[in-house]
């Protein structure tokens, strides 16, 4: 097959660094007829809320929406595992015709006494948006009947993309947060909320341990391994640090507005970002002991992982990476992280990146690198080949595409196998990159007995 053509309407969503000045078109809807890699509002909301481990997550809609999201994220938890079950109202034809409110009420009446959750999320799906069920009313009534929060999540899929879902989720989280406990005057405490880590492969645990080591308490993680109790108390913090800005900036903004909690954008991906983040936190608290402990941790951890990083760097030097991930924050960090292991990013794209993020990416990549928004597989294929990428970083749907092209692959999404945050994560990342790039299986790809090419 020849190189697929690029749809005219898509051309503005693809820019090359260094060629004529052009602004990338992003934050728009996908073209009809595209093989878009994008997900929906419900998906976004579910991703953010799913790690709330003791909540009952009820999907109000036909069965599919629930089936596809049953335990798809590797969000680890310590103890409560109600969130790993899949609950659906399984709407049928008569519910579509006569409305699904009755069925939702019946489902809540059955499930709440059975599972006794401290909190229920009710997700709206596309169909529910169209048939016009009054989720608010049903949830409110159930909430009164059972004395627990039953929260509607307005996540009908067609009202936007994944980011709209993040917003819907943040709205709900904010509603759960109670005003802070009054503090004794002059008490000094170093207590923060960590926003935008879903504890994939246990990443939030690593960060929590770092923060504890430098004398900072983690009040609650949004939402990796979180519980209702912790979320309620989120206002009792002096700082919000946000990692996955795409999903959590909005919540941080609301917390700042309502309770005056300042916020700091951070990244724990890669050695430099991790160190810089720890220092920024220390600077914020402006306390000598925290600074000292942060420096000590940075020195100790860097020294521990440096030999491994350098070993990988020497082997990976000069290789080229392509990146296609969900949000802009991760894309930015990855450019830096690849540089730490001697690799250059030659193609970078996201599903839902924002304009500022694309500008940042543009400033980080080398001349000639291609930057794309909401790419389809044909474009990914074309640019990976044109740019000579040796490796693709992406999600589930990109993996087999890369493999078919004989390009190595690392999952930086739900299917990641190891924690990729912090110092330990930086080594895992380098190791994963190396193990896929260095695998002998690629040698077999070129062969073929028929033409005697073995």
């Amino acid at each position, binding site marked *: 097959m020849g190189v697929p053509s690029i749809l005219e309407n898509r051309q503005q969503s693809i820019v090359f660094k260094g060629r004529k000045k052009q602004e990338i078109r992003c934050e728009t809807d996908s073209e009809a007829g595209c*093989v878009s890699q994008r997900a929906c509002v419900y998906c976004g909301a579910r991703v953010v809320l799913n790690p709330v481990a003791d909540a009952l997550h009820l999907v109000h809609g036909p069965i599919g929406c629930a089936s596809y999201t049953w335990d798809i994220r590797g969000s680890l938890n310590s103890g409560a595992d109600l969130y790993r079950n899949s609950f659906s109202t399984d709407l049928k034809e008569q519910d579509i015709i006569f409305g699904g409110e009755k069925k939702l009420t019946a489902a809540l009446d059955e499930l709440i006494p059975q599972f006794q959750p401290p909190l229920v999320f009710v997700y709206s799906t596309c169909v529910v948006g169209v048939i016009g069920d009054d989720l608010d009313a049903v949830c409110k009534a159930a909430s009164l009947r059972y004395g627990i929060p039953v929260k509607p999540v307005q996540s009908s899929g067609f009202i936007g993309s994944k980011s709209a879902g993040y917003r819907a989720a943040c709205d709900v989280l904010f509603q759960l947060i109670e005003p802070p406990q009054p503090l004794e005057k002059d008490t000094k405490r170093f207590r923060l909320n960590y926003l935008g880590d879903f504890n994939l492969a246990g990443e939030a645990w690593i960060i929590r341990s770092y923060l504890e080591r430098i004398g900072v308490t983690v009040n609650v993680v949004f939402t990796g391994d979180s519980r209702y109790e912790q979320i309620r108390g989120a206002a009792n913090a002096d700082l919000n640090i946000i990692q996955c800005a795409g999903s959590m900036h909005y919540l941080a903004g609301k917390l700042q507005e309502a309770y005056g909690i300042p916020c700091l954008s951070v990244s724990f991906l890669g050695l430099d970002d991790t160190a810089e983040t720890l220092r920024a936190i220390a600077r914020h608290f402006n306390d000598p002991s925290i600074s000292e402990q942060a420096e000590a941790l940075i020195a100790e951890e860097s020294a521990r992982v440096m030999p491994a990083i350098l070993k990988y760097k020497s082997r990976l030097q000069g290789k080229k990476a392509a990146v296609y991930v969900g949000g802009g924050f991760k894309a930015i960090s990855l450019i830096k992280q690849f540089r730490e292991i001697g690799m250059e990013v030659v193609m970078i794209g996201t599903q839902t990146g924002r304009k500022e993020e694309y500008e940042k990416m543009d400033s980080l990549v080398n001349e000639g690198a291609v930057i794309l928004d909401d790419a389809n597989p044909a474009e990914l294929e074309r640019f990976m080949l044109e740019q000579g990428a040796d490796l693709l970083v992406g999600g589930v749907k990109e993996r087999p595409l890369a493999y078919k092209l004989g390009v190595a692959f690392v999952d930086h999404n739900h299917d990641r196998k190891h924690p990729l945050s912090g110092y330990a994560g930086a080594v895992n990342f380098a190791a994963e990159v190396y193990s896929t790039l260095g695998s002998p299986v690629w040698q077999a790809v070129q062969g073929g007995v028929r033409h005697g090419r073995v």
Partner: protein
Amino acid sequence: MLDATPKKLAERTSGSMINPAKTCQPIGAMYAALGIHRCLPHSHGSQGCCSYHRMHLTRHFRDPVMASTSSFTEGASVFGGGANLKTAIKNVFEIYDPDIMAVHTTCLSETIGDDVPTIIRQAEVPEGKVVFHANTPSYQGSHITGFSNMTKAMVTYFAESQLAEKEERVNIIPGFINPGDMREIKRITAAMQIPFTLFPDTSGVVDSPMTGSFQMYPRGGVTLPELKKTGDAKLTIALGRFASSDAAETLEKKCKVRAATLRTPIGIKATDAFVMALRGAFAVEVPRELEEERGQLVDIMTDTHFHFHGKRVAVFGDPDIVAAMTEFLLSLGMKPIHVLTGTPGGALGSGMAGFEGEVKEMLSAAGISGNVKSAGDLFTLHQWIKNEPVDLLIGNTYGKFIAKAEDIPFVRLGFPVLDRSVHSYLPVVGYRGAMRLIEMISGALLDRQDRDAADEDFELVM
């Protein structure tokens, strides 16, 4: 794991699902459409559904799964999705250049009430290209229904009867099974030297070989001329009532091709029935090759029967596969005491006995009383198992939660299998597939026995 599942069974009347054993129609339609050569499935609805369906199929097959979407936005939900679909049709042929575009609906476009055939008629379809559709509202049936509907659409749109006399050829509708199984069905039919058309045929599409380049449309799949000719074949064999019989019956009505519905050929009995049906209709000898395979299977069954006898089994998944598997378990002397499917039973087509009736009949003929349920969920299955424990669990990947919670040996079978590879390449159908199943089952049971054996009971030879 799944600590929340209580042992005590309570009546459930709300109709909600806890840990579903089914998913929605469009994914089945998408899978069926992939079984046509150079066909791009198209999801008429929001992009999210399409993304999920592709992701799920990709995880199961570990191959790229291509499908386009109408990308509904708020406007579409108010004014209908006609404009989106027309733009989509134009764009798809312009960029992705398939020969055929298979449109299926989603809950959303169904609820809005889009008249898809009319929209297709009004759309600009390039010369020589084809667009067809199936309605797949997910609030009815399951992914199996969706597979059935899309397969039926292939008949309604394409099958023609052009000849005065039927040709010596068989149409085989395989049902929602893996490409490895489809290959095996083709191999068996070819070994009997009977001309055939298998449709849909996803072999060579979602198990395509690595060549170092990405093929948007791999070599596999039934072709359009082949689909047309299905109307001239003398027999259609529908393997599996739920996934295949609707299309076969439609073809019978439309082109007078006799339809025979058989079980999915899993296990010795169902494979025998398949082979005998072919032999009977085409008056051919069963080749030595198959005789030999059958003999080997029987040999293996006798060699191993003492491992299996009386072992209690829970089996769940898609109705055609579960019914056939139940039959095979009975042939091995095992006791399938919990049998469950998520797909609602019996509502498809006319005159079909429900899943529950079919399975119960098999069980009672074997003198076994067990729990049988259609439209069930894994919460129910888990509760059954808590009340009446089993020695083995068979089902798709989601069974691993129960297997872990209850510490039961587990054999992965059906769709989806998201946590193991190779399963989609090798068959479970036919005599050789049955051998493979025995290997899987005895492997699971005996590994467990070895693991748990005290040193003094640990045996080298088993």
